[in-house]
């Protein structure tokens, strides 16, 4: 296998193509508030390590791997403040305020946000990439370095978990009917 140096224009073009999925991946790992910083940091690391990129391989997958690894390191440094990596969901009385999670809640309902945060990172990423960007599971699987079926299973379980976190179907308003949901900003 031969390696060729990655040119700057090729590098930035990759972010034009894969930047939005990479941002979502970062958001799945460290939250929306820090996603941009994580992408920036991952870009810096990727550029420094560009000599390790194998020419002809999937550049998006390589960048996604760096985002995931950088995100994992990021989370380890902030472990006491992040609840998303807890093995068991916290009881409502044990849950820390959302502001301490290191992840801004924006306009997500608390229940949905907590359910999302209690998911494993891979499941959260699989669901977000599929729902927000409408990416096929084959692409998601490549970005997460898992089999396609596994990516589908993660997305399915994540969706069921979010469903359970919300009110019964009959009580739920339409998407635009925000006031029925308790939101935290």
């Amino acid at each position, binding site marked *: 296998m031969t390696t060729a140096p990655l040119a700057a224009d090729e590098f930035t073009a990759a972010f034009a193509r894969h930047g939005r999925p990479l941002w*979502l991946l970062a958001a799945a790992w460290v939250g*929306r508030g820090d996603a941009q910083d994580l992408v*920036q940091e991952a870009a810096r690391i990727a550029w420094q390590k560009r000599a390790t990129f194998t020419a002809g391989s999937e550049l998006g997958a390589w960048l996604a791997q760096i985002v995931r690894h950088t995100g994992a390191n990021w989370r380890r440094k902030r472990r006491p403040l992040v609840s998303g990596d807890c093995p068991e969901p916290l009881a409502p009385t044990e849950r820390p305020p959302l502001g301490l999670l290191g992840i801004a809640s*924006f306009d997500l309902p608390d229940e949905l946000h907590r359910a999302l945060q209690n998911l494993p990172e891979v499941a959260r990423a699989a669901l977000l990439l599929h729902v*927000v960007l409408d990416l096929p599971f084959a692409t998601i699987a490549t970005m997460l370095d898992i089999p396609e079926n596994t990516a*589908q299973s993660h997305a*399915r379980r994540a969706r069921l978990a979010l*469903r359970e976190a919300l009110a019964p179907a009959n009580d739920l308003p339409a998407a635009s009917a925000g006031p029925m949901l308790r939101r935290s900003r």
Partner: protein
Amino acid sequence: MNHDDDPANERLDDPRDAQIYALLRDAYAPPPADVLVAAATAATRTPPSVVWQWWLAAAALLLTVGTWFLLRHDQVQQAKRHDGTELGAMWAAAYQHAVANRDGADGKRFCCDPSLDFCGTCEQRFAVRLGFAGQASVQLRGCYCGLPTGASVAALVDTQHGPVGVFVLSRDQDPGACLPADCSLQLARRELGSLVLYGLADARQPDPSEPLAQFAIAP
């Protein structure tokens, strides 16, 4: 969005899904692509980290010190690499080379460097000023500067019987030089203070000890 291929849609009519999807799309809308491209562009312009530069400087320093140590060690060990027979063979080759080339085709001498101060060279190499009390019949032609001669200082002396090669070694670096069995030269040895002098001449000439006796340690 195409939900047909979504295995999570075991209940596509669940109204919660539409709500969840809409909320997620709103909350997790990525920034515009140009913002992310700007992040990549900035990364390509980031100077190398200071830590990396420190590691490079440390490696360069280590390399310099290591090279210096190895070179110095090699200088000290240079004479010890040769045993007496090897050194004798080298000197025999050097002597024959010097004799064959002492007068060039244009009459210029080029096997030896008359301008090279023999006494100064010995002082530089052995910290001993080795002087030569030349007589009319014995003259120092100059320091030999041709083939390798080990760690010795070599010179060529002209006598009335012919040329004599003189090789000076520090006594602690003297392996006890001897000539190869089939060599047509003869070798004389003289110890002088911390130095050892060897004289090399053709076997048909008188004993080369006589020119060696002309050398003395200068104060």
